[in-house]
Each structure stands twice: as C-alpha cells, then as structure tokens.
C-alpha cells in the first residue's frame, strides 16, 4: 500500500515538474526562440548548400506521349 502511495506521489511530482517546465517553454516562447534563432538558420544553410538539378537542361519533349484523342 505504501509502495503504491509512493509511486503515485512520484508520478504526481513528475507530472507537476513536466507541466511547469512546459508552461515555462510556452509562456516565454522558448519554442519560437529556438526555431527562429537556431533551427531555421541551420536548415536554411543546409538548403542553400544543397546540390540541385539544373531543371533548365531538361528537354521539352513535345511528342513523348501519344496524341490525346479528344472525343467530345
């Protein structure tokens, strides 16, 4: 009985700490600050340095597909 009570108390304490921590993140917009100052610049750097196919070199294949038969 005592063990169960202790377990519930521990669980309650963890839930309380998690709630408080999340509320601090929420209230002080720490998620926004992290995304704006760290995550987005990092991802932008990655996307800017990506090698990309030169799409302008793709041929414009006018006759690649069979002629479409318009019935109406």
């Amino acid at each position: 009985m005592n063990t169960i009570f202790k377990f519930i108390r521990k669980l309650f304490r963890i839930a309380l700490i998690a709630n408080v921590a999340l509320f601090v993140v929420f209230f002080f917009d720490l998620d926004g600050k992290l995304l704006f100052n760290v995550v987005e610049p990092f991802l932008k750097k990655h996307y800017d340095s990506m090698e990309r196919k030169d799409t302008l070199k793709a041929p414009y294949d006018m006759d690649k597909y069979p002629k479409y038969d318009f019935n109406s």
Partner: protein
Amino acid sequence: MAKKTFSKILKDFWYGKPHTAEEGGRRLGELHEDKTHLYKHREWRGVPDTMYYFYNIWLYNYIFMVKDIMVMHGPITFAKGLWRYRWIGQTYLPVLHWFDRGLEGMRGEAMKASAWHYRAMVSTTIRQFQHMFAADTRLNGGRQNDLYRHTIAHNETVWGGVFYPWDGEITNVPLEMIPYFVTCHVNSHTVLNYIDAVQSIGLPGDPCPMCQAEAGIFVLDDVPDYAPAVITCNEACDASVSTSTLQDWFFDKPLFSLPMPMLFDDPLVKDYVKREIEELWKFIEQQYGIPFSWEKLTKKLELQNELQRFEWEKWEVDAKTPYYPINGVAQALYRIYQSQYGDWEIWHVTDRKVRKILEKCVSKKIKTFPQTRHRVIAWSCAPLYYSNWCTWAYNCWGLNVVINMDSLMFDMEIRTDSYEHTLEDMAQYHMWAPMRRMAVGGMHHMFELWDYMKRFNCDMVAMYDQLQCKGVQGLHGLFEDEFRKRDIKAFWIPHALPDSRTVSRAEIRRLINDYMSTVMHEEPLDPSLLDFDDSMTW
C-alpha cells in the same frame, strides 16, 4: 486605494487585462520583441483562457502534429522530406506561431472555435505532405511504389471534388497547396526563394507572384515526384497558363489541362466545361486503369454538401447576431482550404466541435467580439503573408472582419439526383474557383459585394488590391466610383499576394491607421498596436 489596486490585480490575473486603453488596457504590442516579433512572453489571457491556450491549443497541437506524422506514414518519411525540401523544413516547424498570430488577443469561445479551424488545416496539411513524401520516387530510391501509382497530382486550383469517383483508390494531392500556398501563411520567407528563382531564369517580375512562385518551386527542383500523371488548370489567368507550361516542361508527365473558360454564366460555356470534366474522367481511367464510380462520386458529394449546409448555418449566425465565434482569418483560411481541397473527415470532426461552441454562444448570447466598432467585409484576394491582418485590426481598431470574398465563392450545393444535374453543378463549382468568380469573373460577380454587405450587415469594406493581378487592377477606379456613389466606408489594402517585400505588413497597418484616424476620426482601442517593427517575422 490599496484594496482597489489589489482587487484590480486579482481581476486582471483571473480574467486577463481588459481590451481597451481606457480600461487600463492589455497593450498587446508590448509583448513582442522588435523586428523578429517573437514574444518576450506569450499573452496572459486570464487563468481559464491561458490554461486553455496552453493545454488545448499549444500542447494539444504539438502532440497531435506528432501523432498525425506517426499515423500518416511515420517519422522517418517526415525526416527524409524535411531534409530534402526547403518548403517543409523552413515552414512547418513554426506552425504554432502561425496560431499565435491568428489568435492574438482572442478570448473565450472565439479563441476556441478559431483554434479548431487551425487544427483542421494543420492535420490536412500533414496528410498531404506525408503522402507526397511516402510516394516520392526521390525519397524512395527512384522506386515507383504502390502509393505513387495510386496518386494523382494537380494544380491547387483544380477542385478536389473532380476526383471523388476514385475515392479510396486514387489519392489526389495538389502540387502547390502545401509547397506554396500554406507556406506563405506560416512562414512568409520561404516563398521568396521560389519567386527569385523564377526571375533568375529571365522571367519578368511583374506577373502574378503566385504563378511565379509556383513555377519557381520547379526551377529550384523542389517538387516531390509523387504521381504518374498531372492535371493542370489555367485559373482563367494568362500567368497561370505560363506556369502550367513550365510545369509541363519540368514535370514531364502525362498531363491533362482542365480549362477554366474566360467566359462563364453562359449555358454554352457550361456545356463545354461539362464535356471537359468528362474528358478528365476519361483521362484518369486511361492512365490508372480504374473505372469511374458514380456511387463514390455521389457519396462524397453528399458529404461535401453537409459541410456546405453547416457553413450556411454559420453564415446565418454571423450575419444576424453578434454571437459568431470564428475570427476573420480562421473563417477565411478554413473555408477556402475546405471548399477547394474537397471533402475530408477532419472537416466533419471540426464542424461538430465548432457546432457545439456556436450553439453555446447563441443559446447563452455570448458576444464573441465585444469590442466590435465596425462590421467589415473583406473583398478580392488577401495578402497571404498577412492573412492575420484582421486579427490585428480587431485588436487595434475594433474592425471585425465578419466575412470575406474567398469564403463566399462556393456558395452552392451540388445536386446528386441525376448524372446530368451533378455534372452541371460540378461545372459551375469548377468555374467558381478561388480568385475566379469574384476577382477576375466580371463586373456582375465582383459587384456582388453590395448584396453581401447587406446580407452580412456590414458597414465597412476592406478592399484588397493585388498589385500584380492585371484582372482586378483594371477595376480599381470602378470600385472607387461605386464606394463614393453608395456612400460606403472603404479602405484599400495593397499587396503582392505572397511577396511581403512589395508592400510590407507595416505599410498595410499604416494605411489602415491613416484611414481610421483621418477619415473615421477614431481612437485606437489598443495604441500599442499602432506602430511596431515586425520586418523580420515569419
């Protein structure tokens, strides 16, 4: 005195500070950092509303975004897409800040109902990009998997309803709705890469920036290869035709062009569109080898009609009472997303939740926007990078945007009693596409504004002026004349749709401030919102 101060502090703590400056005001403009517009701290809305926002909006949506990703093709698919495509990584991570911008200052039922609309849009967005990534040959070692073979790509201006006959067998995923349209609302920086890309290959900078961006995504090779065939649409706009040409070149797939005629409201033109829709169905049958199903079509249309009927109920409350609990930006974005994308389960779930809130507001006579000074109708197409301007306008000036043009375009049910009726109504729906009926649809439809003003009991017009839309630009003077003749209070919002560099958010606010002070001679409700620098914000 001390007792009075203590009681005010206690009241402000429990209910949040009052809206207006005279009452001691909440001064929302002071919550933000300069330039980035990040919060110094999020708004304290009183105990019940702050806790609701924290648990039921902020935490709930983060959890359900993760859940949606887990359920819809999993986190590995998401991670692969995130690493490969700029529009996902740069955009969808700050999605909760898109909620913040739209819901700033909202309280009680208005905050709750508006947030449910945002939740539905997020879920539908996740559904689409996860489907794109799961089917994408680029993320799957060049393999055309089963999902790829059962997916069809199309321009976002093709209504999802034309694919209903293949419901459950072929999934339609619009090409630009996620990589372009939604990104502009969530993070306005992303789209600039694509606009610049298309201009870098020599295209002029003055056509519609929406079309530029949609082509630019292809120029930067940032489109997933997720379907064997594609349907395009001219959107009754020559820039859009050019986009389709570029898409045809870069996508290099069997393509069907579903035209939107320049003329409409003409029986002969409608017959032509009906035939085109039937041709589209034939094209899909040929490409995918799956027959058209009349049962599936009517079943889905009935579900869509259900959504439309609830929309009409909402409009009734909106038009005739002050108890409508959805703010301008949530109303506009949800409606255009839902009506263009077509029927999907999440819309029904959302509508059920919103119905409960709506009924509560009506039965308890809850004034959802108590500081309303003017009931505003917003006309023509809105700036995508500042769709939440109406949240600001309510907080600063008491301008309550009760309805907008985008929401009103598909003001119809689709009959399912016979093939002929269904096809006729579908053709009508197709011709009433976004930015079509009332933006480039001729004077009759553009001037439906006056009827809708009466119907929604509005006393002011927010008139959008898309500077790079040649269709609407020509009618600027006519509107000016009509406003004067009819003695209608109206202000203009110039913008370049997704491109925030042409007319900044600050410039839009300045124009509205000028109108409200010099023409209307009114004082702001919250003076801290008059002038602030958010030039670097998402």
